[in-house]
């Protein structure tokens, strides 16, 4: 094997009560790579991200960041590991008690102890990168549309120039043009920062645009993974059904049971 993978999951299991969500997930993301995980709603994609971030602990299995076992670290060690990460949450998760610019500058002020003025300049710069103007910076998150909140979330995720960025459904709820703008932003910021990214999406257009590699999660396992250009010739019925969005196929939605 060449370089140590940036992120590696070994047989990660996670259940909630009787319900098994992750059932032995194996995954590696190489440095500088952009991996996209696709999969149906409720298959545990967000849970997988939260396990990697240490917001949840897996029941079994191990997670390595830069070759170090981070599965069960906590406290200071966890805060240290978090410095490598940037995360865009599915629902943006902006702090509604703070104005937009302070949301973006939060990690710089609290985590990295930058002076407010300095952090504000960086925040303004990142906001400009995601196409938001100075007057938006002073608003509170509740005054923004969903798409604008997503962009603020993106600016916050890249504010501290992290090594690893996680995107949880960056384009859901956006119009196709804005979705493409966000995709471009992700591709650009990854190229500029040289970051490694792990994204989750059900939007195939987005996946094709941002992915070097694609992996598909189904029933708690990674059932297929490979280079993004191979996604149309996988020969895997599950993947085919998903990327073409067909109701008929091996994946049966619960609602379709007679």
């Amino acid at each position, binding site marked *: 094997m060449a370089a140590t993978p940036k992120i590696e999951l070994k047989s990660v299991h996670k259940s909630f009560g009787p319900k098994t969500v992750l059932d032995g997930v194996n995954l590696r993301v190489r440095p500088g790579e952009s991996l996209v995980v696709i999969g149906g709603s409720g298959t545990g994609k967000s849970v997988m991200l939260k396990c990697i971030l240490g917001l949840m602990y897996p029941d079994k299995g191990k997670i390595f960041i830069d070759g170090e076992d981070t599965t069960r670290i906590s406290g200071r060690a966890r805060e240290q590991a*978090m410095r490598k990460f940037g995360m865009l*949450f599915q629902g943006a998760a902006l702090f*509604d008690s703070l104005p937009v610019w302070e949301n973006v500058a939060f990690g710089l002020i609290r985590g990295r102890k930058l002076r407010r003025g300095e952090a504000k300049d960086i925040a303004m710069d990142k906001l400009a990168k995601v196409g938001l103007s100075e007057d938006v910076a002073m608003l509170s998150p509740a005054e923004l549309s969903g798409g604008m909140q997503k962009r603020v979330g993106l600016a916050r995720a890249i504010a501290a120039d992290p090594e690893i960025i996680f995107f949880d459904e960056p384009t859901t709820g956006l119009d196709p043009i804005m979705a493409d703008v966000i995709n471009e932003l992700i591709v650009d910021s990854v190229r500029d920062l040289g970051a490694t990214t792990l994204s989750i999406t059900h939007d195939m257009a987005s996946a094709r645009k941002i992915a070097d590699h694609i992996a598909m999660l189904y029933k708690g396992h990674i059932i297929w993974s490979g280079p993004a250009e191979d996604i149309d010739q996988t020969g895997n019925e599950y993947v085919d059904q998903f990327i073409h969005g067909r109701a008929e196929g091996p994946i049966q939605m619960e609602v379709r049971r007679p």
Partner: protein
Amino acid sequence: MNIFAAIGAITLAFLAETGRFSQFTLSAVLHCLRPPFFVGIWARQMMSIGYYSLPVVGLTAFFTGGVLALQIYIGGTRFNAESIVPTIVVLGITRELGPVIGGLMVAGRVSAAIAAEIGTMRVTEQIDALTTLSTNPFNYLIAPRLIAAVVTLPLLVFIGDIIGVMGGFIVSTQSLGFNPATYIKNTADFVEVGDVTSGLWKAAVFGFIIALMGCYHGFHSRGGAQGVGSATTYAVVAASILILAANYVMTSILFSD
């Protein structure tokens, strides 16, 4: 279902909850003592917990003092002991009613507000977002509220004590025919420093309970708006019951000799 299995399951759930609560409390207290200290946020919390509770505490104290004077007067006349009114008002307010009624009122206002705010942050993943931005939610959210409540509750209750005694004074002198100078002299002669400080100790403990209940229930809320709603209810109910229980325990310790 087997009855023993049912009892076992309930016991286990109870023990798990107790464990989770103890761990939360310990962690909350440790993070009050351990940097980073977000002093600006402490100050903001003191404003919202302490200063904005003043009207509520002041008004309840005033009416409590007034009604206490009325009742004691009515009771006192039966034994020709009306002159006891000032003494009992000041002792009743400083030792018991000031801290307990003040604590209960603030529990309704502040525990609910804390639980709703932290609960909303939990269900909208803002607490997760804090963690990913290398900020410990215990330092940033919980410690400031605990510290603010423990510091401001005694101050609030002290002000409430003064207003309560004033309420008794106004009722006694305006409608019960007491001489103002004698009333004040009787109040001042019989109240001891210990009466007031014991009430303030209670207030500090109640402040801790109020903030802790709000934080704990908010922090562990799940399931959207409904979850936040029930977290708010639990926080107020639990804080109120714990205040009354703690008051009993503290009274029996503080006044045991």
